[in-house]
């Protein structure tokens, strides 16, 4: 039934200890799987006198269930080949004898050798990842014999580990990018993991039967060349990290398709045990009359569904585009290879405890805005040495002005909020303190000062945090800013923001005053270098003219990138902002 599993499931056929003692003098047909005792030899791939090493294919055998490639479990020179094509071979039968057999005993190999593999899957088609290989070898780094290592790449959503069922490499062997190196059994399927590096294997750090986690080192290389960072296509002037590149690529892709983020990145859907309800396709359509019927046999369609491959994304290699079982597996493998190439953070998350010990839990996919936010903020937090400066502004007078001018903003379709005023205040401050309107290029050891001002405003939506950007804030008046702010917040909440509307920021404001709080330390929105947080303004007793007066106080929190901004500058910058709030007149004089 489940061929996929059958083909790759670990076999437990262990040979007796007696076999173990006979050191690699002959190679016997290993166990091929449950209830398979024999097979027809359809293709012999060895010759007497040839040298053979462990893992190398010996022959193709046709069993009741499939044609399988049988790999050698011994290394040495082939003496006598005792079988010929067309023979029916039984498990345990001697296939060939070995001269100068090296230490690889027959016994432990029985486990490896017992992994029949559907033949055309691997050798027939090199993974596409292998194509650009020669160029990469030519890069100067190749000449440097730096030992590199291969870590288990990301395997897909919600898969963080797998059981190593078959290792396809051995120390001293040459691997090239795209070559399958092991089979891993995850919750979802048995998958072949391709290498992303090329070179000679020095040491293998895992063994069969072991649980391997994403990010774990699988093997090290001698003179290896790690796969070159992909995607240099849209390299902007600023230095961008891997994460940033991914985000950028994502945004570019979205823009190319003319989609909003909402369309390109559908929001989380709870992963119910049962598939989500959708409107029925008209049965006429189901019957294969309206949409094109998939050119795959029913069992192939089922296999794809089982291992989570969209059958329509698989490339059919058969006549008329017919999709075979192998095509589906190849598609799964390519998806994996692609996943292995996407850059990811170097920090492996520590293992989680088993929460179920303490009570019920529910796992919900972290796709969409939440995941993007998580990635972006982790990256910002890891990159930027954060310091948060606190201050407070007396906005008693400003509040009266705000109330007075509120109707005018309303006429323009906006709301005269503290945030709208803060936009104007910050724009003026950024002009006076240009290092707050900058980015750092560590690679080139340069500071990039921006001669434009775009301020992002964090908006709390039901699907997470979004940051629309208001451009050219310095060129707009407060009424205009209020109107634009109102409009963008609405768009954010209605999920209608376009990627363009979230780009081009040089500074960010986040206002939690609507909820409360006396202060917080926001995280800088990388690659910006500072962010201003506003908390709830309160009436507080202030010492004015030798007595306490009730004054409206707005708490300010400025987080900044300490690599670029010194503490004194930050204190001055924030004081300037506080004073601007206190004396709006400053804006017109200095701003």
């Amino acid at each position, binding site marked *: 039934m489940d061929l996929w599993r059958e083909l790759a499931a670990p076999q437990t056929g262990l040979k007796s200890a007696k076999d173990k003692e006979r050191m690699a003098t002959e190679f016997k047909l290993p166990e091929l799987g449950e209830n398979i005792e024999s097979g027809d030899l359809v293709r012999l791939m060895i010759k007497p006198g040839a040298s053979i090493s462990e893992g190398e294919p010996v022959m193709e055998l046709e069993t009741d269930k499939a044609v399988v490639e049988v790999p050698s479990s011994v290394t040495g020179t082939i003496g006598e080949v005792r079988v010929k094509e067309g023979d029916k071979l039984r498990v345990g039968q001697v296939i060939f004898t070995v001269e100068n057999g090296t230490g690889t005993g027959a016994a432990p190999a029985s486990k490896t050798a017992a992994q029949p593999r559907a033949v055309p899957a691997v050798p027939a088609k090199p993974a596409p990842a292998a194509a650009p290989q020669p160029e990469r070898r030519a890069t100067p780094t190749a000449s440097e014999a730096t030992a590199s290592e291969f870590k288990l790449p990301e395997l897909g959503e919600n898969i963080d580990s797998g059981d190593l069922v078959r290792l396809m490499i051995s120390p001293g062997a040459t691997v090239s990018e795209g070559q399958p190196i092991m089979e891993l059994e995850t919750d979802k399927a048995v998958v072949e993991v391709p290498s992303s590096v090329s070179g000679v294997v020095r040491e293998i750090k895992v063994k069969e039967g072991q649980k391997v986690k994403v990010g774990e080192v699988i093997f090290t290389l001698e003179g290896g060349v790690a796969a070159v960072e992909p995607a240099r296509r849209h390299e902007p002037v600023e230095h961008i990290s891997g994460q940033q590149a991914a985000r950028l690529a994502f945004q570019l892709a979205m823009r190319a398709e003319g989609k909003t983020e909402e369309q390109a990145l559908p929001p989380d859907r709870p992963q119910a045990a049962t*598939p989500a309800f959708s409107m029925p396709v008209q049965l006429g359509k189901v019957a294969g009359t309206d949409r094109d019927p998939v*050119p795959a046999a029913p069992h192939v369609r089922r296999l794809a569904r089982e291992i989570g491959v969209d059958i329509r994304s698989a490339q059919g290699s058969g006549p008329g585009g017919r999709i075979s079982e192998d095509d589906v597996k190849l598609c799964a493998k390519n998806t994996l290879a692609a996943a292995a190439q996407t850059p990811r953070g170097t920090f492996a998350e520590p293992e989680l405890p088993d929460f179920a010990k303490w009570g019920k839990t529910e796992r919900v996919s972290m796709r969409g805005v939440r995941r993007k936010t998580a990635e972006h903020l982790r990256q910002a937090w890891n990159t930027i040495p954060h310091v948060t400066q606190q201050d407070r502004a007396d906005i008693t007078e400003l509040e009266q002005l705000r109330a007075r001018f509120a109707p005018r903003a309303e006429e323009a379709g906006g709301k005269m909020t503290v945030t709208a005023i803060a936009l104007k205040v910050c724009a003026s401050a950024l002009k006076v303190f240009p290092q707050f309107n900058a980015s750092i290029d560590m690679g080139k050891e340069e500071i990039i000062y921006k001669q434009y001002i775009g301020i992002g405003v964090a908006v709390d939506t039901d699907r997470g945090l979004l940051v629309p950007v208001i451009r050219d804030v310095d060129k707009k008046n407060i009424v205009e800013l209020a109107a634009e702010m109102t409009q963008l917040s609405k768009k954010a909440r209605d999920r209608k923001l376009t990627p363009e509307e979230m780009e081009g920021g040089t500074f960010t404001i986040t206002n939690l005053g609507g909820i409360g709080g006396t202060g917080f330390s926001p995280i800088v929105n990388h690659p910006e270098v500072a962010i201003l947080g506003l908390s709830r303004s309160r009436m507080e007793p202030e010492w004015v003219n030798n007595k306490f007066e009730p004054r409206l106080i707005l708490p300010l929190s400025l987080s900044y990138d300490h690599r670029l901004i010194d503490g004194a500058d930050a204190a001055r910058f924030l004081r300037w902002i506080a004073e601007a709030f206190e004396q709006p007149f400053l804006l017109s004089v200095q701003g």
Partner: protein
Amino acid sequence: MSNTSNLRVAVIGGGPGGYAAAFLAADLGMKVTLIDPEANPGGVCLYRGCIPSKALLHVAKLLEEAEQAKNWGIEFGEPKIDLNKLRGWKESIVKKLTGGLGQLSKQRAVQFVQGKAAFVNSTTLKITKTAAGGEENLTFDRIIIATGSRPTVVPSLKLDSPRLMDSTGALDLPDIPKTLLVIGGGYIGLELGSVYATLGAKVTCVEMMPGLLPGADRDLVLPLHKRLEKLFSAILLNTTVKSLKDEKTGIRVTLEGPAVKEKEQVQMFDRVLMSVGRRPNSEIPGLDQTKVKVNQKGFIEINEQRQTADPTIYAIGDVAGEPMLAHKAMHEGRTAVEAIAGHKVAFEPNAIPAVVFTDPEIAWAGLTETQAKEQGREITVAKFPWAASGRAITLDRPEGLTKLLIDPKTERVLGVGIVGAGAGELIAEGVLAIEMCALAADVGMTIHPHPTLSETMMESAEIFYGQATDIYRPKR
């Protein structure tokens, strides 16, 4: 996937979809209750649909062939029809098959309840035991609705008269009327009309649309139409029935349409068979206590797994949408159960075969020429006329036709249409070809037994390449 044993599953309706689902669920270790008003599973299909009609159609074919045998030098006397015996034979078939299903239920420990079910909520059913008596509220983990469909009645033509029959009444075979009006030229009307006509009734068939079997390709319908024109006393297309009136001597029928002559506008018929379609049985008591949605046409809305808007409830077969065919229901039933068992499955056939069991039979699967035209899809149609088939000639049935609808680019077989004797059996190969994404070459290069009608599939494929053995039709 492993914890599905001990799941309590109820299946409402014991037709082919219902019992297929119940049996598979039992085979997978679930605790299954199957509820149906009849004494045994079987549903409309076995009790008053596919099976009894096929028995009668077999008789019709025999009578036809006996008549035709005159041409071959064999003559029988006039057939004597013992209606009681015929009815008894038909009923014995039904009994045998439904009894067998009852046995199969017992062997699988499916709890069969003769009764009716009403929903209390999404997981609870109130089961009224019509045979054993009593009422019981039972709770289940999953419920599969397989309540099927029933014949449609045109409201304006409603008549409380034993002379007006639906398909159920017609299959009871009360008598052989002298004259019979069949309203509706779909497969039910043509099948039953054929039975009555060969048994001796003068049959008039009226169809609203411009052709019989709307939806089927015209070239497939043509040979049947020609034959029925001889068998029936009249086929009136583009014609509607304006009124039915029950009178002492029969039903007075008023017809309207361009094909109706003035004198024929009002006619008397001994019996009238209304076969204008079927409607889903979705009016299940208490269904409004669940989240199940029913669309405007009365079908229960389902997803690819046959799950309704209420996650614990599934729906399959006629009640869940077109085409209303037993084999589609059975496949859906199995899909639903596998989905319940946690397998990643979907109802996604590339072809659902349709068969009209008239004489000649018509069968098709996958894409039809009509659909290809509607979609503006480029196809090559390879036709093999049965006049070139040795087997068809020996049967004296050369009017048949086999055709393949082929994608000219990939050479894939997208659709198959057959008209002729035994087309219903032949279509299975076409369905397999479509599901396995066979190319025309695959069909052509597969050795077919000679001399059989199945060769017409192979030769159609050869025609696509302009190389058919038994017909000269060079590739253009």
